[in-house]
Protein backbone atom coordinates (compact mmCIF):
# COMPACT_ATOMS: atom_id res chain seq x y z
CA UNK A 1 0.00 0.00 0.00
CA UNK A 2 1.25 3.47 -0.85
CA UNK A 3 0.81 6.25 1.65
CA UNK A 4 1.95 9.12 -0.51
CA UNK A 5 -1.03 10.32 -2.45
CA UNK A 6 0.83 13.27 -3.96
CA UNK A 7 4.58 13.90 -4.16
CA UNK A 8 6.22 17.25 -3.53
CA UNK A 9 7.50 17.42 -7.10
CA UNK A 10 3.95 17.16 -8.41
CA UNK A 11 2.67 20.21 -6.55
CA UNK A 12 2.90 23.75 -7.88
CA UNK A 13 1.73 27.12 -6.64
CA UNK A 14 -1.72 27.75 -8.09
CA UNK A 15 -2.72 24.08 -8.17
CA UNK A 16 -6.27 23.49 -7.00
CA UNK A 17 -7.16 20.88 -4.42
CA UNK A 18 -9.91 18.47 -5.54
CA UNK A 19 -13.22 19.70 -4.10
CA UNK A 20 -14.85 17.69 -1.30
CA UNK A 21 -18.65 17.91 -1.07
CA UNK A 22 -20.23 17.19 2.36
CA UNK A 23 -23.84 17.15 3.41
CA UNK A 24 -26.66 18.02 3.17
CA UNK A 25 -26.29 18.64 6.90
CA UNK A 26 -28.83 16.77 8.98
CA UNK A 27 -29.67 17.12 12.68
CA UNK A 28 -28.50 13.58 13.36
CA UNK A 29 -24.97 14.49 12.20
CA UNK A 30 -24.87 17.44 14.62
CA UNK A 31 -26.03 15.16 17.42
CA UNK A 32 -23.38 12.60 16.51
CA UNK A 33 -20.71 15.30 16.33
CA UNK A 34 -21.78 16.59 19.75
CA UNK A 35 -21.32 13.13 21.22
CA UNK A 36 -18.03 12.51 19.44
CA UNK A 37 -16.51 15.90 20.27
CA UNK A 38 -18.05 16.55 23.69
CA UNK A 39 -19.52 19.90 22.55
CA UNK A 40 -23.11 19.74 23.79
CA UNK A 41 -23.95 23.42 23.29
CA UNK A 42 -27.76 23.28 22.85
CA UNK A 43 -27.50 25.90 20.10
CA UNK A 44 -26.61 23.00 17.76
CA UNK A 45 -29.42 20.70 18.98
CA UNK A 46 -32.40 22.59 20.32
CA UNK A 47 -34.38 24.80 17.86
CA UNK A 48 -36.15 26.70 20.66
CA UNK A 49 -32.89 27.47 22.42
CA UNK A 50 -31.28 28.60 19.16
CA UNK A 51 -34.27 30.84 18.37
CA UNK A 52 -34.27 32.38 21.85
CA UNK A 53 -30.53 33.07 21.48
CA UNK A 54 -31.32 35.15 18.42
CA UNK A 55 -29.60 32.77 16.01
CA UNK A 56 -32.68 32.02 13.90
CA UNK A 57 -32.50 28.29 14.52
CA UNK A 58 -30.00 25.49 14.91
CA UNK A 59 -26.65 25.64 13.13
CA UNK A 60 -23.70 23.28 12.79
CA UNK A 61 -20.66 23.23 15.05
CA UNK A 62 -17.88 25.24 13.41
CA UNK A 63 -15.62 22.34 14.30
CA UNK A 64 -17.66 20.01 12.11
CA UNK A 65 -16.99 22.24 9.10
CA UNK A 66 -13.33 22.41 10.11
CA UNK A 67 -13.33 18.60 10.19
CA UNK A 68 -14.64 18.66 6.60
CA UNK A 69 -11.84 21.04 5.60
CA UNK A 70 -9.25 18.79 7.26
CA UNK A 71 -10.69 15.82 5.36
CA UNK A 72 -10.42 17.70 2.08
CA UNK A 73 -6.69 18.17 2.70
CA UNK A 74 -5.99 14.59 3.84
CA UNK A 75 -8.09 13.13 1.01
CA UNK A 76 -5.73 14.91 -1.39
CA UNK A 77 -2.35 14.83 0.35
CA UNK A 78 -2.76 11.84 2.68
CA UNK A 79 -3.42 11.26 6.37
CA UNK A 80 -0.70 12.28 8.80
CA UNK A 81 0.50 15.09 6.53
CA UNK A 82 -1.24 18.08 8.16
CA UNK A 83 1.18 20.16 10.24
CA UNK A 84 -1.01 23.19 10.69
CA UNK A 85 -4.62 24.06 10.01
CA UNK A 86 -6.09 27.40 10.97
CA UNK A 87 -9.54 28.67 10.05
CA UNK A 88 -12.01 31.45 10.61
CA UNK A 89 -15.73 30.64 10.74
CA UNK A 90 -17.26 33.28 8.47
CA UNK A 91 -20.90 32.20 8.15
CA UNK A 92 -23.22 29.74 9.87
CA UNK A 93 -23.87 26.33 8.36
CA UNK A 94 -27.57 25.45 8.61
CA UNK A 95 -29.52 22.21 8.37
CA UNK A 96 -29.86 21.05 4.72
CA UNK A 97 -26.79 23.07 3.67
CA UNK A 98 -24.30 21.40 1.35
CA UNK A 99 -20.70 22.29 2.23
CA UNK A 100 -18.04 22.16 -0.47
CA UNK A 101 -14.41 22.32 0.64
CA UNK A 102 -11.89 23.78 -1.75
CA UNK A 103 -8.27 24.85 -1.70
CA UNK A 104 -5.35 26.15 -3.67
CA UNK A 105 -1.59 25.85 -3.27
CA UNK A 106 -0.08 29.20 -2.28
CA UNK A 107 3.45 28.13 -1.43
CA UNK A 108 5.98 25.32 -1.24
CA UNK A 109 9.08 25.19 0.95
CA UNK A 110 11.52 22.93 2.75
CA UNK A 111 12.08 23.20 6.49
CA UNK A 112 13.82 20.89 8.97
CA UNK A 113 14.05 18.19 6.29
CA UNK A 114 10.32 18.32 5.58
CA UNK A 115 8.80 19.35 2.27
CA UNK A 116 5.91 21.63 3.01
CA UNK A 117 2.91 22.64 0.94
CA UNK A 118 0.98 25.72 2.01
CA UNK A 119 -2.67 25.87 1.00
CA UNK A 120 -5.35 28.47 1.09
CA UNK A 121 -8.45 26.50 2.08
CA UNK A 122 -12.10 27.37 2.33
CA UNK A 123 -15.57 25.86 2.47
CA UNK A 124 -18.65 27.29 0.81
CA UNK A 125 -22.35 26.55 0.99
CA UNK A 126 -24.69 25.78 -1.93
CA UNK A 127 -25.07 29.51 -2.61
CA UNK A 128 -21.32 29.94 -2.97
CA UNK A 129 -21.02 31.85 0.34
CA UNK A 130 -17.82 31.11 2.23
CA UNK A 131 -18.54 29.51 5.61
CA UNK A 132 -14.91 28.76 6.51
CA UNK A 133 -11.68 30.37 5.30
CA UNK A 134 -8.18 29.43 6.34
CA UNK A 135 -4.71 28.09 5.73
CA UNK A 136 -3.24 24.62 5.89
CA UNK A 137 0.35 23.41 5.91
CA UNK A 138 1.08 19.81 4.97
CA UNK A 139 4.36 17.87 4.89
CA UNK A 140 4.46 15.50 1.95
CA UNK A 141 7.06 13.06 0.63
CA UNK A 142 9.40 13.57 -2.28
CA UNK A 143 9.96 11.17 -5.15
CA UNK A 144 13.60 11.23 -4.01
CA UNK A 145 12.71 9.78 -0.56
Amino acid at each position, binding site marked *: *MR*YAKVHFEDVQVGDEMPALV*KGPIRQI*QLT*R*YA*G*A*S*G*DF*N*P*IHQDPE*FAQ*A*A*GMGGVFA*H*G*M*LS*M*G*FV*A*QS*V*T*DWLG*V*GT*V*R*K*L*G*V*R*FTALVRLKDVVTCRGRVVGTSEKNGERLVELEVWAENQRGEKVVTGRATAAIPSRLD
Partner: protein
Amino acid sequence: MAVQVNRSVIGKEYPAYVVTVERGKIKEFARAIGDLNQHYLDDAVGRASPWGDVIAPPTFPITFRDERADAETLLHDLGVDISRVLHGEQEFEVHRPIRPGETFTCRTRIVDIHEKAGRSGPMAFVRRETSIVDRAGDLVGTMRHTTVVRL
Protein backbone atom coordinates in the same frame (compact mmCIF):
# COMPACT_ATOMS: atom_id res chain seq x y z
CA MET B 1 -28.31 46.08 28.28
CA ALA B 2 -24.82 45.58 26.93
CA VAL B 3 -22.93 42.57 28.22
CA GLN B 4 -19.62 43.15 29.96
CA VAL B 5 -16.76 40.70 29.64
CA ASN B 6 -14.54 40.15 32.64
CA ARG B 7 -11.14 41.17 31.24
CA SER B 8 -9.28 40.38 34.44
CA VAL B 9 -8.99 36.75 33.29
CA ILE B 10 -6.45 37.60 30.56
CA GLY B 11 -3.38 35.50 31.28
CA LYS B 12 -5.30 33.03 33.44
CA GLU B 13 -3.93 29.49 33.29
CA TYR B 14 -6.34 26.66 33.91
CA PRO B 15 -5.35 23.55 35.86
CA ALA B 16 -3.42 21.09 33.70
CA TYR B 17 -5.44 18.01 32.77
CA VAL B 18 -4.50 14.57 31.53
CA VAL B 19 -6.21 12.76 28.66
CA THR B 20 -5.77 9.25 27.33
CA VAL B 21 -6.73 8.69 23.71
CA GLU B 22 -9.34 5.96 23.28
CA ARG B 23 -9.36 3.86 20.13
CA GLY B 24 -13.14 3.91 19.90
CA LYS B 25 -13.25 7.68 20.36
CA ILE B 26 -11.00 8.22 17.33
CA LYS B 27 -13.34 6.11 15.22
CA GLU B 28 -16.49 7.75 16.59
CA PHE B 29 -15.00 11.18 15.83
CA ALA B 30 -13.99 10.29 12.25
CA ARG B 31 -17.41 8.76 11.58
CA ALA B 32 -19.22 11.80 13.00
CA ILE B 33 -17.38 13.96 10.44
CA GLY B 34 -18.15 11.38 7.77
CA ASP B 35 -14.43 10.85 7.12
CA LEU B 36 -14.20 7.11 6.52
CA ASN B 37 -10.46 6.99 5.85
CA GLN B 38 -9.27 3.50 6.81
CA HIS B 39 -6.23 4.94 8.62
CA TYR B 40 -8.68 6.22 11.23
CA LEU B 41 -11.07 3.26 11.27
CA ASP B 42 -9.34 -0.01 10.42
CA ASP B 43 -6.91 -1.44 12.99
CA ALA B 44 -5.31 -3.77 10.42
CA VAL B 45 -4.64 -0.87 8.04
CA GLY B 46 -3.21 1.03 11.00
CA ARG B 47 -0.88 -1.80 12.02
CA ALA B 48 0.50 -2.02 8.47
CA SER B 49 1.02 1.77 8.27
CA PRO B 50 4.21 3.72 9.05
CA TRP B 51 2.61 4.65 12.41
CA GLY B 52 1.89 1.07 13.48
CA ASP B 53 -1.68 1.85 14.49
CA VAL B 54 -4.67 3.93 13.48
CA ILE B 55 -4.15 7.67 13.95
CA ALA B 56 -6.50 10.49 14.86
CA PRO B 57 -7.84 13.04 12.35
CA PRO B 58 -6.20 16.51 12.50
CA THR B 59 -9.01 18.15 14.50
CA PHE B 60 -9.35 15.30 17.01
CA PRO B 61 -7.56 17.19 19.84
CA ILE B 62 -10.72 19.32 20.17
CA THR B 63 -12.04 16.33 22.16
CA PHE B 64 -9.35 16.87 24.82
CA ARG B 65 -11.59 18.43 27.44
CA ASP B 66 -11.70 18.83 31.18
CA GLU B 67 -14.49 20.35 33.20
CA ARG B 68 -12.06 22.63 35.04
CA ALA B 69 -10.80 24.10 31.74
CA ASP B 70 -13.70 23.76 29.31
CA ALA B 71 -16.00 26.21 27.57
CA GLU B 72 -18.44 26.33 30.49
CA THR B 73 -15.65 27.27 32.89
CA LEU B 74 -14.53 29.93 30.42
CA LEU B 75 -18.07 31.34 30.20
CA HIS B 76 -18.30 31.43 33.98
CA ASP B 77 -14.96 33.27 34.18
CA LEU B 78 -16.02 35.74 31.49
CA GLY B 79 -19.42 36.22 33.08
CA VAL B 80 -21.36 35.53 29.87
CA ASP B 81 -24.14 33.13 28.89
CA ILE B 82 -23.59 30.27 26.42
CA SER B 83 -26.28 31.68 24.11
CA ARG B 84 -24.04 34.70 23.41
CA VAL B 85 -20.92 32.90 22.22
CA LEU B 86 -19.81 31.72 18.79
CA HIS B 87 -16.71 29.89 17.65
CA GLY B 88 -14.75 32.53 15.74
CA GLU B 89 -11.46 30.94 14.80
CA GLN B 90 -9.57 27.73 15.44
CA GLU B 91 -6.04 26.59 14.73
CA PHE B 92 -4.22 23.30 15.21
CA GLU B 93 -0.49 22.92 15.05
CA VAL B 94 0.39 19.24 14.83
CA HIS B 95 3.91 17.97 15.37
CA ARG B 96 3.17 14.28 15.04
CA PRO B 97 0.18 11.97 14.61
CA ILE B 98 -1.83 10.92 17.70
CA ARG B 99 -2.46 7.22 18.34
CA PRO B 100 -4.78 5.23 20.60
CA GLY B 101 -3.57 4.64 24.14
CA GLU B 102 -1.38 7.73 24.30
CA THR B 103 -1.57 9.94 27.37
CA PHE B 104 -1.11 13.70 27.12
CA THR B 105 -1.05 16.62 29.52
CA CYS B 106 -3.01 19.65 28.30
CA ARG B 107 -2.58 23.19 29.57
CA THR B 108 -4.98 25.99 28.59
CA ARG B 109 -4.54 29.69 29.17
CA ILE B 110 -6.38 32.82 28.12
CA VAL B 111 -4.00 34.67 25.83
CA ASP B 112 -5.97 37.78 24.98
CA ILE B 113 -9.37 39.46 24.99
CA HIS B 114 -10.14 42.35 22.68
CA GLU B 115 -13.33 44.07 21.65
CA LYS B 116 -14.38 45.05 18.14
CA ALA B 117 -17.43 46.39 16.37
CA GLY B 118 -18.97 43.51 14.40
CA ARG B 119 -21.65 43.54 11.71
CA SER B 120 -24.36 42.87 14.28
CA GLY B 121 -22.97 44.98 17.13
CA PRO B 122 -20.02 44.98 19.54
CA MET B 123 -18.17 41.73 20.09
CA ALA B 124 -15.38 40.46 22.31
CA PHE B 125 -12.78 38.07 20.91
CA VAL B 126 -11.40 35.73 23.55
CA ARG B 127 -8.24 33.86 22.51
CA ARG B 128 -7.20 30.70 24.34
CA GLU B 129 -4.25 28.43 23.71
CA THR B 130 -3.92 24.78 24.76
CA SER B 131 -0.59 22.95 24.65
CA ILE B 132 -0.55 19.16 24.33
CA VAL B 133 2.53 17.44 25.76
CA ASP B 134 3.30 13.71 25.73
CA ARG B 135 4.74 11.52 28.49
CA ALA B 136 8.27 12.18 27.22
CA GLY B 137 7.69 15.92 27.72
CA ASP B 138 7.59 16.65 23.98
CA LEU B 139 5.08 19.11 22.56
CA VAL B 140 2.74 17.12 20.32
CA GLY B 141 0.51 19.98 19.28
CA THR B 142 -1.05 23.32 20.09
CA MET B 143 -4.68 24.39 19.78
CA ARG B 144 -5.65 28.04 19.48
CA HIS B 145 -9.33 28.84 20.02
CA THR B 146 -10.99 32.19 19.43
CA THR B 147 -14.42 32.52 21.06
CA VAL B 148 -16.61 35.42 19.98
CA VAL B 149 -18.95 36.92 22.58
CA ARG B 150 -21.88 38.97 21.26
CA LEU B 151 -21.95 41.89 23.68
